[in-house]
């Protein structure tokens, strides 16, 4: 059965495709994102407090390498098969090496609904994964002669709303612990799925707006938008297995790898690689990959992780 929250996403796509005037006000959409990011961060922080640094540190390093690798792997395909300009290829590659918090949130909903446990410090890896792909993307577009703007881009990404809320939430959850955050549970955790439903409704409306530009850019983007996450999920799954994550954790890492950014990376690329066409990357990441992941990808990555654990997994 389809995740109930995903029905809100479909409702958004249909309403958008019919050109309904429905829209979350900008302030409400931001509010919804703030609640989701803080909730994800807080939950992760509480769990992080239970982990050994010696376990987490290697995961952090591995995941940064994975983000860089995925961007580097996507670039030649985009240049060669997709015949994109250098800037466009670099920008799209950066989107796919990075991650989508929205996809992660849907996956959280999927796994908790099914009672499948996963390493809950995942949000730390999520926050980390935003960065390397952006750096690789800029270098791919510009070479190593990084101009003045690049410094401020690095600052802006690190201090962007998304990262600050995730890391801030992590820290607070880590310091306050489960008891400490109990009193704010009703807002951040009890409402989580309802807020996620609103988020997905708006994402559906935004996605529908991308479908037009998708038509213009042809079949390659659609194929790439499906094939790339499948490939990335394989990489993520393999890495999860190698890092000794649980089935749930492995599936989560596969999902993170498969997800493509549509908030942090577009903003960073717009400023640091202005000649890249932003509608191209958004059409792929929002118009194809996000719906693919949310509707059919997450169960696929779950199956992938389960099978991988059966075949190669430890006890």
């Amino acid at each position, binding site marked *: 059965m389809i995740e109930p929250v995903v029905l809100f996403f479909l409702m958004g796509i249909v309403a958008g495709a019919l050109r309904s005037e429905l*829209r979350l*006000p*900008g*302030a409400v*959409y931001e509010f919804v994102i703030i609640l989701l990011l803080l909730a994800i961060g807080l939950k992760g922080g509480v769990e992080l407090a239970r982990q050994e640094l010696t376990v987490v540190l290697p995961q952090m390093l591995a995941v940064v390498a994975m983000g860089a690798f995925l961007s580097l792997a996507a670039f030649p395909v985009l240049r060669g098969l997709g015949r994109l300009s250098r800037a466009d290829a670099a920008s799209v590659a950066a989107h796919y090496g990075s991650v989508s918090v929205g996809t992660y949130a849907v996956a959280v909903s999927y796994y908790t609904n099914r009672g499948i446990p996963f390493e809950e410090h995942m949000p730390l890896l999520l926050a980390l994964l935003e960065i390397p792909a952006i750096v690789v993307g800029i270098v791919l577009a510009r070479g190593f002669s990084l101009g003045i*703007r690049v410094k*401020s881009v690095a600052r*802006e990404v690190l201090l962007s709303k998304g990262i600050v809320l995730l890391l801030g939430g992590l820290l607070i959850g880590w310091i306050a612990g489960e008891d400490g955050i109990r009193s704010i549970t009703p807002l951040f955790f009890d409402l989580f799925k309802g807020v996620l439903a609103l988020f997905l409704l708006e994402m559906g409306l*935004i996605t529908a*707006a991308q479908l037009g530009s998708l038509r213009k850019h042809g079949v390659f983007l659609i194929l790439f938008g499906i094939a790339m996450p499948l490939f990335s999920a394989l990489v993520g799954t393999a890495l999860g297995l190698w890092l000794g994550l649980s089935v749930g954790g492995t599936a989560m890492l596969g999902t993170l790898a498969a997800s493509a950014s549509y*908030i942090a990376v*577009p*903003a960073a690329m*717009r*400023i640091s690689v*202005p*000649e890249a066409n*932003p509608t191209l990357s*958004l059409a792929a990441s929002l118009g194809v990959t996000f719906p693919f992941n949310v509707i059919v990808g997450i169960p696929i990555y779950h199956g992938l992780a389960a099978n991988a654990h059966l075949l190669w997994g430890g006890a």
Partner: protein
Amino acid sequence: MKRHNRKLLTVVTEAAVESILIKEMESLGALGYTITSARGKGRRGARHAEWMPNSNIRVEIVCDAFTAEAIIKHLHEHYYAHYAMIVLCADVEELRPDSD
């Protein structure tokens, strides 16, 4: 009250560049600016969302003709080719207390 003849530059462009654009305007001599959030449409299609990658800002800069030229030149060289942007220039009287 003194009247000064000034140029009023009005720039409508992508919200994504706000903070960088402002810094550059100031380094080119602008002593102030006023920004409102806007939506619109132009050669680069509709920019109707309040959603960041698709939203506009409308920036007004009151300055002397010399600074206006510098800013126009800068926008031409660094923004026009790649960003959704329209730049308008008009004559305007600024009213300042006599002491200024």
